[in-house]
């Protein structure tokens, strides 16, 4: 008989952003049980993680297991004893041949376990091993840990309850509805579960909640915001969108400020007018079905009004003191205890901007970039640092290049974020990040494992992205103060960028970086060349030969410092031919010559013994190989390429 399985873990409100990963993790843990089944579907709301599977057997298949007894040579008494212990007669036993000899044995039939028993045994630890970034205990010290307290559990296999317990909660057949629109206890079956929840104002499917919100937003000219939509899908069980308005006079404030208040602080969508400008409206998503009296709309409007009033107050107060006049105030804002104040940092940034080839706009922007840290608006909306400085600089008549550089200087904030918009802004952003990295590494604040309180990985990643995507050919290595830990740290970030973000193979990256990585623009173009060479038929065999050459040179402790190549010592045939080929192709890009070079190399290794008895000949051959290797190693160290041959 084929049975459906339903597992619902009922909790208090789980942080929205953790839910999709938790569900995926729950699915994997369930698959690992290896209970044969047909489909699995996963669903969640803030208060429940749900797994439903179809086609589970009532019990697992029987299987046979061979039980080994005494050796064939054992006395009859021992054989009889073995048989008796297994509840058999000696004649029921058979002889099994093993590598160690022949033994008495028999095939024991092991009855398949009932699926419900397997589940009841496995589920408690399975549930508690779902991965969450941060967990809590809620009963007593040493008690179970989960993301939030577990308050009920539904576990049904067909019509039967799968009996188990976690933290005093028994699995059963009772779910719970919406906190206020539904009943606290609702009896369900695997068949009516989703429908019963709907009756009690819980839309189980995230897709359906998403679609409900989307359809209610349609026609409202809402600024698309996929991340906000996902948040709202997972903080509601019964989402309903409502539109509200605010006083149009607030539109005098910068859009960035208004949108930040609406989006980050209130989780509202902002609305545009027909020309794409911000309109004095917003859309909130409630966790109830309707707002006939307008209570929720008016409540949200009042909250927004208060927040906008605050923002306007800060905006106006801050304008009383120009950014440039705030520079001295930075002396009182510590950047880091051992690295001085933000005033010190601003001066270092300005000097660095100059070193990086920045013009006077870049230097001025570097000096002013951190001044917004002393403004009320940034103290209130820290996520707007930089942006606010840029806005104030614009309002205070700074040149476009300057205010834009201030505005952009925290960019890119992630791998998917854009780099600063122009060269001046890129230089300022580089100066900021490189200064932070140098300083932190100098005083030993080096990230370890997941601990990276100064977000140095992100800073270094930003440097790499700006240099590559901005096409800036600066010698990165020269900027790292010969600090080996910082150089290694950057090497990892460069690898990460080209591998995880740009999709190059790790061995291609190793090969290209071995030939130098100070100029990341150049590194990128060499990587692109390797990538296009790789599928050609001569590439991997030649890479294998280069690896062989490298090994030979290493074994011979060849330093390349010895006598120059002596043509007269070259043996006629493959060795001479390889040398002549080398003479012809030297200085040309490898793409043009690879098909001619490869057969000569192959032939050389096929016919010529490098380790010749005559020391001079041997040394000369090593020199030939060393020269050849050096010729192409300016592009990449091909011996790093992982080959199948």
């Amino acid at each position, binding site marked *: 008989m084929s049975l459906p399985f339903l597992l619902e873990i009922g909790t208090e409100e789980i942080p929205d952003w953790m839910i999709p990963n938790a569900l995926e993790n729950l699915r994997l843990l369930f698959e690992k049980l290896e209970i044969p089944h047909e489909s699995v579907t996963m669903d969640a709301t803030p208060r429940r993680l749900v797994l439903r599977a179809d086609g589970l057997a009532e019990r697992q298949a029987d299987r046979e297991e061979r039980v080994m007894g005494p050796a064939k040579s054992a006395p009859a008494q021992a054989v009889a004893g073995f048989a008796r212990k297994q509840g058999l007669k000696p004649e029921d036993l058979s002889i099994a041949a093993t590598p160690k000899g022949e033994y008495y044995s028999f095939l024991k039939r092991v009855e398949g376990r009932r699926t419900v028993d397997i589940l009841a045994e496995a589920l408690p630890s399975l549930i508690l091993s779902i991965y969450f970034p*941060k967990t809590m205990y809620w*009963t*007593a010290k040493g008690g179970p840990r989960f993301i939030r307290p577990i308050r009920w559990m539904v576990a049904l296999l067909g019509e039967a309850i799968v009996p188990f317990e976690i933290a005093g909660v028994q699995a059963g057949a009772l779910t719970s509805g919406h906190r206020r629109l539904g009943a606290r206890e609702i009896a369900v079956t695997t068949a009516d579960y989703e429908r019963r929840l709907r009756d009690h104002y819980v839309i189980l499917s995230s897709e359906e909640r998403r679609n409900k919100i989307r359809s209610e937003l349609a026609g409202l000219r809402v600024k698309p915001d996929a991340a906000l939509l996902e948040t709202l899908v997972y903080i509601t069980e019964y989402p309903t969108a409502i539109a509200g308005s605010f006083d149009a006079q607030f539109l005098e404030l910068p859009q960035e400020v208004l949108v930040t208040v609406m989006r980050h602080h209130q989780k509202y969508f902002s609305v545009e007018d027909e020309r794409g400008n911000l309109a004095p409206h917003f859309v909130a998503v409630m966790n109830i079905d309707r*707002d006939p009296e307008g209570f929720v709309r008016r409540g949200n409007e009042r*909250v927004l009004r208060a927040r906008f009033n605050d923002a306007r107050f800060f905006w106006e107060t801050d304008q009383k003191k120009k950014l440039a006049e705030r520079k001295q105030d930075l002396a*009182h804002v510590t950047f880091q205890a051992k690295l001085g104040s933000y005033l010190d940092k601003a001066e270092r940034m300005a000097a660095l901007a100059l070193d990086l080839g920045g013009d006077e706009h870049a230097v001025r922007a570097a000096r002013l970039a951190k001044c917004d840290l002393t403004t009320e608006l940034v103290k209130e909306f820290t996520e707007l640092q930089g942006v606010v400085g840029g806005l104030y600089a614009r309002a205070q008549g700074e040149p476009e290049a300057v205010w834009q550089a201030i505005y952009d200087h925290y960019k890119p904030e992630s791998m998917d974020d854009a780099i600063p918009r122009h060269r001046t802004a890129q230089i300022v952003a580089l100066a900021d990040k490189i200064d932070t990295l140098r300083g932190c590494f100098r005083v030993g604040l080096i990230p370890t494992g997941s601990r990276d309180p100064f977000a140095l990985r992100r800073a270094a990643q930003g440097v790499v992205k700006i240099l590559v995507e901005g096409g800036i050919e600066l010698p990165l290595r020269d900027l790292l103060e010969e600090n080996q830990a910082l150089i290694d740290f950057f090497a990892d970030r460069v690898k990460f960028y080209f591998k995880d973000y740009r999709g190059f193979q790790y061995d291609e990256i190793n090969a290209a970086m071995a030939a130098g990585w100070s100029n990341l623009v150049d590194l990128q173009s060499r990587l692109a060349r390797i990538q296009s060479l790789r599928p050609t038929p001569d590439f991997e065999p030649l890479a294998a030969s280069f690896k062989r050459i490298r090994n030979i040179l290493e074994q011979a402790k060849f330093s390349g410092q010895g006598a120059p190549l002596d043509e007269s010592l070259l043996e006629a045939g493959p060795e001479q031919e390889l040398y002549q080929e080398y003479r012809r192709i030297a200085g040309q890009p490898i793409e043009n010559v690879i098909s001619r070079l490869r057969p000569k190399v192959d032939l050389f290794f096929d016919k010529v013994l490098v380790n010749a008895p005559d020391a001079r000949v041997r040394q000369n051959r090593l020199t030939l190989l060393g020269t050849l290797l050096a010729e192409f190693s300016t592009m990449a160290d091909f011996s790093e390429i992982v080959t199948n041959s």
Partner: protein
Amino acid sequence: MQSFQEIVFKLKQYWAERGCIIQEPYDIEVGAGTMVAETFLRVLGAKPYRVAYVQPSRRPADGRYGDNPNRLYKHQQLQVILKPAPADAIEQYLGSLEAIGIDLRQHDIKFEEDNWEAPTLGAWGIGWQVMLDGLEITQFTYFQQCGGIDLEVVPAELTYGLERLAAFLQVKDSVYDIVWTEGFSYGDVRYLDELQYSVYNFEMADIATLWKLFDLHEGEAARLLQAYDAKSPDKRRFPLLPAYDQVLKCSNLFNTLDSRGAISVTERVGVIQRVRKLAVGVAQAWVDQQQEQAAEVAP
């Protein structure tokens, strides 16, 4: 319309009916109801406790001379501790909102992730900010650690912002317009507080004096902690509660110095560490002292 004090009465009544001791505010200045010994020390150890109290909470840096409609130097928190946290803690909390007349089928209530942390107390917990129609009205926390100690049993802490709740219920855009009781607005009762303390905290507090006071209170707390002897047969008499008062004094002085702009960011970390060290010291001694008492009571 319910007045401010009626809201407070009803909430106290609600929690009294659920077995809470109704305490009165503590008489030393604090930044939050959590800092009062009724929470800070009572959550330690395994002994059950249920308490609710209004605690005026001082945040010197939040003062706005009585000008800002939403920001206050001193606001009133209703602090509820349910130890151990009952399985229906959230339901009980929602019931309290209904007790003050909020029909939750017609209002939007959301629990948004917000893990609470108080570095000066070595305390943190897991929880939410509770949003009512977009307004944060309560912090709901399951304590995990206090005084740097993992808690034996997990309490639920509810902290209601009473001004916000009252402004919501009375539909006021400014806290100063809240009706405290008939004939008296919140502004009538509290405006001068806000004005004068803002002037003191931002302009007139004497930095050298405050530092001196800080050092004195710190010294007194440290002296007492030094004198606590875990092996003394008489340790039950030992004045840990007065020692903790000294820590509270330090904490408020730190906040005042901070609002006065007298603490650089570098110093900040160091001063927080000094207060934390004392708070953790009291918490550890308290756990020790409580254990001894439990043993004495046992037959």
